[in-house]
């Protein structure tokens, strides 16, 4: 080895075998941003570049000629000398920062590395000359900056992960404050926080009540259970709706921080929990060991508080909504009950009225019959002894009493129809019509013609019979003077084109006027409509609605008798059977009444 005494730094010039590498290393050492040193096969340092001299504070003169192990005993202690041995065997070693932190203990180039050492990656290679390994060559790279940046990035990622996890929890939580209590232990470590306090803001009392806390003893919790808004940092944050971030709390003389100082906190951050105008309380975090939070940490905590506030607001609103819905549904059910009660009362009243009218009609009949009978006897047996005016009066009395009798009879029928329990069974309309015609005393012989089979309906026999009889009766009563009544009965299926015989039957007399008055059937679906068409006086259009009311009689020839209840009975009976009825008529051209009912199912015969 030659020491020319001129080079005090940089790689030491040496006689062969190092001289072959000397030229190359000479310029590499100046331009490369790396630490470069060489050793001989005994691991005595032979070259030491300027970079290393600057970083280590050891000049080349101080290190060249000294053993690597003597100079850096730490290297041997950490087992790193084996990599130099490997190089001497011809291997190239690479040393990762993550596994070794550093090769040579050099001071840190930047102030942010907590260990205070320069973080390094290193390559240790054999130094060969003429195919002989003559020593080792080591290149050191300072990766402190890179690692610090990476650590910052990792911390940021960790924050982001924690934040998204925490926010996810808060947003979906039924009880956001309980969630804050759950989140706290997870964030306390990474953020180096020791304490959290959640106060509820009681506006009326102007005080803060401790709701939950972490990192404080039960004793401390008791002392913090109620705080005045006026004299605390939390109170100030709640009132102003602004966060307060306090550093160096122990040195502060701010009276608002008295509580925090007493707790021994060195840094303290309070975040108001509010949404719009509503202040729910505060969430605060503190550290016993750190004098200040970083901006990132404050931002992080502010987000937690902000989401907690949103979640509290949401749960409060949900609970209010829930209450409102409960009130509404309670109100609705009360209304329903009231309606049901009133309907029941109404039904009872109607039943009482109907029962009353039945009783009246029923009880009136006996005296009316006496009246009629005795008047009749008087007229027949004692007329000869009476003057003519008396006879005439008696005749009038008899007519009036008969009329009264008819009226009470119809009233009785009406109230019976109204009260009757209806049971629908299949009824053959043709057969019923024949029966009504044959039993009727008022119908002239051959007045009624039935067109085609009329079909079968679901009805109550007595009610439907009553309806047909009343309509035939009407047709006779309201016949045109001089024209014997002609009544035609036919049917048609409506609401369905099903091939029933009634439906297939063509309408021989299409209505010349559309129905103006009718009682609509209750159910939808196919209906069988039975037409009862007469050639009587007809009904004026304006009266089509009136005729269905009780005691409604339209003005007509005085000779026409009637109680005015017949059609009311028809309407009521049809309604009872779930059917409908109506009329189409023009004065002078007869009336076409119709009754509509549900067709009875086809009877399938075994034959």
């Amino acid at each position, binding site marked *: 080895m030659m020491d020319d005494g001129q080079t005090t730094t940089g790689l030491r010039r040496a006689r062969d075998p190092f001289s072959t590498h000397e030229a190359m290393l000479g310029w590499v050492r100046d331009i490369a941003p790396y630490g470069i040193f060489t050793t001989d096969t005994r691991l005595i340092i032979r070259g030491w570049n300027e970079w290393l001299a600057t970083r280590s504070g050891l000049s080349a003169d101080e290190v060249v000629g000294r053993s690597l192990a003597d100079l850096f005993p730490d290297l041997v202690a950490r087992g790193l000398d084996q990599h130099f041995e490997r190089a001497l065997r011809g291997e190239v070693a690479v040393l990762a920062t*993550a596994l070794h932190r550093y090769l040579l203990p050099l001071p840190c180039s930047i102030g942010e590395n907590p260990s205070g050492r320069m973080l390094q990656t290193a390559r240790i290679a054999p130094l060969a000359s003429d195919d002989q390994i003559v020593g080792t060559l080591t290149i050191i790279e300072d990766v402190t900056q890179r690692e610090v940046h990476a650590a910052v990035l990792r911390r940021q990622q960790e924050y982001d992960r924690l934040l998204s996890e925490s926010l996810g929890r808060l947003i979906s939580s039924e009880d956001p404050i309980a969630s804050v209590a759950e989140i706290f232990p997870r964030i306390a470590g990474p953020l180096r926080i020791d304490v959290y306090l959640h106060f509820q803001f009681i506006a009326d009392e102007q005080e803060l009540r401790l709701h939950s806390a972490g990192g404080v003893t039960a004793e401390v919790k008791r002392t913090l259970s109620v705080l005045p808004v006026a004299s605390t940092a939390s109170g100030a944050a709640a009132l102003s709706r602004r966060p307060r971030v306090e550093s160096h709390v122990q040195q502060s003389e701010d009276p608002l921080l008295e509580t925090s100082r007493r707790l021994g906190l060195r840094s303290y951050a309070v975040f108001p929990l509010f949404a719009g105008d509503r202040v729910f309380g505060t969430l605060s975090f503190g550290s016993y060991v750190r004098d200040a939070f970083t901006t990132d940490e404050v931002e992080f905590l502010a987000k937690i508080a902000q989401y907690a506030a949103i979640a509290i607001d949401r749960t409060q609103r949900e609970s209010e909504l829930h209450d409102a819905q409960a009130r509404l549904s309670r109100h609705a059910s009360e209304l329903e009950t009231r309606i049901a009660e009133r309907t029941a009362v109404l039904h009872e009243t109607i039943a009482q009225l109907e029962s009353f009218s039945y009783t009246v009609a029923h009880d009136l009949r006996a005296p009316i019959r006496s009246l009629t009978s005795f008047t009749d006897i008087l007229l027949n047996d004692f007329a000869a002894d009476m003057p003519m005016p008396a006879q005439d009066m008696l005749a009038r009395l008899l007519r009036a009493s008969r009329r009264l009798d008819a009226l009470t009879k119809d009233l009785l029928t009406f109230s019976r129809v109204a009260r009757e329990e209806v049971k629908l069974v299949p009824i053959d309309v043709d057969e019923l019509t024949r029966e009504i015609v044959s039993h009727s005393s008022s119908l002239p012989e051959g007045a009624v013609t039935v067109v085609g089979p009329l079909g079968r309906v679901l009805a109550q026999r007595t009610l439907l019979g009553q309806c047909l009889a009343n309509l035939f009766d009407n047709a006779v009563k309201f016949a045109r003077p001089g024209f014997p009544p002609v009544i035609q009965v036919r049917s048609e299926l409506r609401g369905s084109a099903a091939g029933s015989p009634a439906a297939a039957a063509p309408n021989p007399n299409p209505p010349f006027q559309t129905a103006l008055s009718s009682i609509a059937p209750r159910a939808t679906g196919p209906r069988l409509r039975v037409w009862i068409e007469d050639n009587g006086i007809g009904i004026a259009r304006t009266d089509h609605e009136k005729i269905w009311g009780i005691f409604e009689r339209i003005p007509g020839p005085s000779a026409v008798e009637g109680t005015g209840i017949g059609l009311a009975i028809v309407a009521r009976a049809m309604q009872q059977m779930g059917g409908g009825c109506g009329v189409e008529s023009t004065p002078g051209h007869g009336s076409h009444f119709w009754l509509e009912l549900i067709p009875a199912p086809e009877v399938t015969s075994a034959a």
Partner: protein
Amino acid sequence: MELTLPQKDALTELINIGYGRAAGALSELTGFRVTLQVPKITMHRIDQIGNLLAHLIEGEVASVNQVFSGPIAGNALLMLDKQAAQALTRLLCDDNSLTNSFESAEQEIITEVGNILLNACLGVFGNLLQVHVTFSVPRLQVSDVGGVLRSITVESDELQYGLMIHTRFQLRASNLTGYLVIVLGITSFDRMRRELDNWELRQTQ
């Protein structure tokens, strides 16, 4: 050209010796017990290696590649799929701050592990076969299998072979699989077979 059964046995034994050394170095380095196993060694023509690896490794691979020279010369590679590489760095480093990234620090770890493994393997080769081998600086590449193989294929008229060493890392109750591929020209391959025979002979003497 194939390896005879005794040659294959000899090779497996040699590699196991090398892996023993590497496992020792890794255990010492990390403070955890690391074991390395060689379940299988296969020999292929270089053009078949790509397909073979593509079936075994999906997506990106981290590969550490070191050229070696001497009487037996070639290119040695350690290939790990990215998940295995990330898992390995986390397991070795015992540092929770390492996240799912595969940045400089993680790449360096894989480079060092690859370096230890490749050197141990080839070093033992050199020693036991009594041939002197020198190594280049290890180079890490993150790419797909095709990209890795393209980058190491040397322009050569010589027929090239790939020695594929299936490698299982066991550490901290985890199992990770990697592939060590040694690419040799036919001359080196020939020489290796001869040296394997010699070694076999020496063992029996």
